[in-house]
């Protein structure tokens, strides 16, 4: 980190290598598009390059990258008005499925997560992809813990209902 801060490009490249998976995955889950996710992830690292002086530890760096990636993704979704995914409650119902290790089921679950509204999606991604606990999610997203827990609970209920094909009327927006 110190060497990267001193302008050593190989040290910065090492930082990119170390965190590219995290940043890209968040961008991909939020934007549901590989090209836009790549572009956003690049922008996050570009911003990191400009603000490296303000990062004081590896923990801070990981926190900062997640926060910037999620916030940029939400901003982009709002800016591009791409938030036109149909709400999850209106998604096509799926047939009853047993919960088992199934690549197709995983894909369907990821698709359903991609249909969640931006804030709820960010919470779910940080919880189940990044494995953060609600406290860390709350500080990353500048939300209260109760809001995070509420998003999690409602999103899980909704996703479970969708996966199991249960009709649900509640709109989580």
């Amino acid at each position, binding site marked *: 980190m110190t060497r990267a801060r001193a302008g050593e*490009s190989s040290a*910065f*490249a090492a930082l*990119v*290598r170390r965190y*590219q*998976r*995290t940043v*890209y*995955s968040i961008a*991909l*889950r939020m934007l549901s598009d*590989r090209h836009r*996710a*790549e572009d956003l*992830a*690049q922008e996050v*690292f*570009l911003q990191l*390059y400009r603000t490296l002086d303000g990062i004081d530890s590896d923990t801070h760096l990981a926190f900062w990258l997640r926060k910037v990636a999620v916030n940029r993704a939400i901003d982009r979704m709002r800016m591009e008005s791409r938030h036109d995914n149909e709400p999850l409650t209106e998604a096509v119902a799926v047939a009853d499925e047993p*919960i088992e*290790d199934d690549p197709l*089921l*995983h*894909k369907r*679950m*990821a698709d359903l*997560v991609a249909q969640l509204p931006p804030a709820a999606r960010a919470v*779910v*991604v940080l919880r*189940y*992809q*990044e*494995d953060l606990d609600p406290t860390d999610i709350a500080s990353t997203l500048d939300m209260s813990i109760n809001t995070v827990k509420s998003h999690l609970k409602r999103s*899980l209920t909704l*996703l*479970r209902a969708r*996966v199991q094909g249960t009709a649900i009327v509640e709109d989580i927006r």
Partner: protein
Amino acid sequence: MSKDFEQQLHEALRPVDPEEGFEQRVLARIVQERSSTLRKVTRWASVALAASVVFAAVLGTHEWQLRREQEGLEARKQLLEALRLTGEKLDVAYQAVNREAPEPADDGSGA
């Protein structure tokens, strides 16, 4: 069941790697941004320099005009002073001439 579902969700949202060469593309973008910033700085410096030259020229012209006006006023003052002095001298001379002039001679006609 809830735990199973969360576990499935966890697996469904497994982190994925970007396409090969991501790191090089980021570094290339940084280099590109650096040169773009340099271009912007150069452009702004040129504009600032041109503006400074124009400003200096305007200021110089203004100073020159002021100095010319001051010089004009000074010359006018000196001319008025010279005219005043000349007038005084003429007045003195005129009075002296009048004082020294002989009185008109009496022709004895008694008129």
